[in-house]
């Protein structure tokens, strides 16, 4: 939980830096935002699916099965 708060604190600092940079370099603003949005959608389309798959994997497949097929 502590780690989670720390990570979100880091995130807000990065967002602040991002916004400041956008104000300092308005000529790059458009392409920066466009690239970020594009990449965000790319992640948003695939990340939830991967997380659900990992969740299902953890619940249904025991550690022993994994070790049998992929372990040493």
């Amino acid at each position, binding site marked *: 939980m502590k780690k*989670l708060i720390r*990570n*979100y604190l*880091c*995130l807000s600092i*990065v*967002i602040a830096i*991002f916004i400041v*940079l956008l104000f300092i*370099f308005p000529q*790059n*603003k458009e*392409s*920066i*935002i*466009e*690239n*970020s*949005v*594009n*990449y*965000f*959608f*790319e*992640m948003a*389309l*695939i*990340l*939830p*699916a*991967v*997380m*659900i*798959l*990992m*969740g*299902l994997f*953890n*619940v*249904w497949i025991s550690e022993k099965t994994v070790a049998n097929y992929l372990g040493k």
Partner: protein
Amino acid sequence: MDISITVIVINLFVLLSLAISLFKSKEKTILSLKNALKSLVGIMPYVIIIVLGIGLIQGFLSREIISGFLGEGSGFSGVFLAGLLGAILYIPAIVSFPLTASLIENGASIMVAAAFIITLTMVGLVTLPLEIKELGKKFAILRNLFSFIIALIIAIIIGVFLG
């Protein structure tokens, strides 16, 4: 924005798995969805930081600047510089091929171009925090380090054959 086939296949596969899981046990499915949500919340700050970082890098370094830097480099230092740039930058493969083609047009050697593409795909410094979080510090650093060294070796081999 186009939706790639990979995205469709993965999402369909997950929906199918979810349906089968729901059919077999409702409790286990809910538990796995809860786990999924928890890891999504945990991973979100990393994802957004990476997204913003990539936006900044691609916004500030235009194609011309990138190819200008790499075109001047020659010999091993050029290969090393290209490899380092490829390791730091995050550019999807689909963008990197035309970019690398323009590098070659602008006078970059085959070796430099190869080093750039190979480290771009094999080494990810921007995504390193995420890799450390998911796979551990030791694994992530060793994998990236050896990938970088071997990428340069492959680049030199390709340069010797095609240069």
